[in-house]
């Protein structure tokens, strides 16, 4: 067994394989398929202050090597989350990070505060990058000042691990990354989905009710790699990669490029056991390549000089 443990500042994960928000429910949905405790951690579906019904149907469409979604942060709201989901999550041995979203700047901190007063979780992921909501979401994450403000307010209500999830739909992702770093983020999650669209040529209608949605899956991996590379080069805090990871080779690519951990998203729909399998595959990879500790390969990208 290789040492797969990774440290992301104040928090350790038993391995760098986490699951991405919105693709893994609250983990319970996946318990028929795998042992959640084998994962490095899980990131929950977004939690907002009020319950949200989400966007109209249709919300998903398949595209070349990817999918579009416009779920619109459908969730039961923080109070029911605390009552119904927290007990299960607290029973897990793997790390649990709660993905938090909001319509207003204050809502993020409010959601975290309520979860903290119910005992809290291992950490929080600030979702300022959802492309599928009219208010808040990506509108926040494309503005460095707003990102800074939300991060600062969240920092005031918790000492726990705080990662800010960035959108690629900006001119300069490093500017937003630095704003989050300077205001107390412990890590950055790179990236959320890209704005995309698909059209049904028979009906001449968009395939999503919201017209555009968020593109995910293997199609976005090269974009995610480039963004991880840029962000990792611009900040001192660790980067968690998200975008198109399907197999262990993808995981290694992101670690080499500078990510300290990765999130598995769309791949969970294709193979509900994939996240656990990747932990095993990563272990085998390390053995085969005589890597004693996975941290040895993080940020080892060789550049021509």
């Amino acid at each position, binding site marked *: 067994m290789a040492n797969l443990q990774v440290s992301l500042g104040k928090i350790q994960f038993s391995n760098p394989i986490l699951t991405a928000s*919105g*693709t*893994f*429910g609250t983990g319970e*949905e*996946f318990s*028929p*398929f795998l042992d959640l405790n084998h994962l490095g951690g899980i990131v929950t*579906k977004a939690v907002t202050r009020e319950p949200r*019904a*989400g966007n*109209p*149907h*249709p*919300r*998903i*469409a*398949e595209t*070349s*090597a*990817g*999918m579009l*979604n416009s*779920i619109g942060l*459908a969730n039961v709201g923080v109070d029911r989350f605390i009552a119904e989901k927290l007990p299960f999550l607290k029973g897990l041995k793997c790390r649990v990070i709660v993905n938090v979203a909001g319509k207003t700047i204050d809502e993020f901190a409010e959601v975290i505060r309520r979860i903290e007063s119910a005992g809290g979780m291992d950490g929080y992921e600030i979702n300022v990058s959802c492309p599928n909501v009219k208010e808040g979401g990506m509108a926040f994450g494309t503005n460095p000042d707003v990102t800074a403000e939300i991060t600062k307010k969240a920092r005031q209500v918790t000492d726990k691990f705080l990662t800010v999830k960035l959108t690629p739909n900006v001119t300069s992702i490093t500017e937003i990354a630095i704003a989050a770093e300077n205001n107390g983020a412990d890590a950055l999650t790179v990236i959320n989905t890209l704005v995309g669209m698909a059209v049904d040529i028979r009906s001449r209608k968009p395939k999503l009710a919201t017209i555009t949605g968020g593109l995910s*899956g*293997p199609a976005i991996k090269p974009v995610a790699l480039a963004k991880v590379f840029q962000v990792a080069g611009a900040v001192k805090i660790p980067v968690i990669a998200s975008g198109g990871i*399907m197999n262990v080779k993808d995981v290694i690519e992101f670690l080499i490029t500078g990510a300290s951990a990765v999130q598995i998203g*769309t791949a*969970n*729909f*294709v*193979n*509900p*056991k994939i996240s656990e399998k990747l932990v095993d595959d990563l272990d085998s990879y390390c053995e085969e390549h005589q890597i004693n500790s996975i941290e040895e390969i993080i940020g080892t990208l060789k550049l021509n000089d």
Partner: protein
Amino acid sequence: MRANTDTTIRLATGKILAAFSVTEDIKKIRISHRQTAECALPGQFINIKTSDSLFPLLRRPFSINRTNPAQGWFEILFRVVGAGTNALAQLKIDSDIDFVGPLGNSFSLPDKSQNSVLVAGGLGIAPLEFLAQKLTEEKLSAHLFWGNQSSEAFSYQKQFSRLNLKTFFATDDGSLGFRGNVVTLLERELAALKDENICIYACGPNPMLRALQNFAAAKNLTCQVSLETMMACGFGACMGCNVEKADGSGYFYVCQDGPVFDIKEIRIYG
């Protein structure tokens, strides 16, 4: 509707035992997988990875069409419409097939006093045939109303000989049975039946289900309907398969709350 209380949803590998062509583009495959054959209920579906490639990436959902628990196999019936179903149609006998299931809730069986009326549009026959199998096993009879665009698909009716069904057919072009849509045929025949104590089970394209929804409301008939939507996960994780509640209070999720719904509780578009 019976909720899925089953904790045996699994990622499974079955083997293709047989493949049949009903018409040029309607196919049936028989999959060996004992646990699924034993525990699947009418209305439930499986989510199949149709190829190892990145396109199609997502799994494709198919209703369980028939089971044979004694021999440990079940069947799906499907129309080739795109890349996923094309890949399925190419699968050779003895090859492995990767699926998640059984998923979703199931049809509630009728009271012994109720008469079951099955209404299918096109490949909507797929889950209803499994229901008819269960009814037959329970020594119950049923009426089946089946509409298709043309008479081609009706070669399939020989499958019904082992079922306790009285059949009524409709075609858009009148090439077989009633000329017109199946709901119109149903209205006409039910008037002749003069039976109030019926339970309708339906699956088919949305325009048909809309017409049926209006009819069931007007006559105050109970109707369970199996719905189709786009799906990514199939087990309640992606929130992609929403259908609007009739009272406007939000959404159901077809893979978990359904695919079988009381027709009064949902909004049907198209």
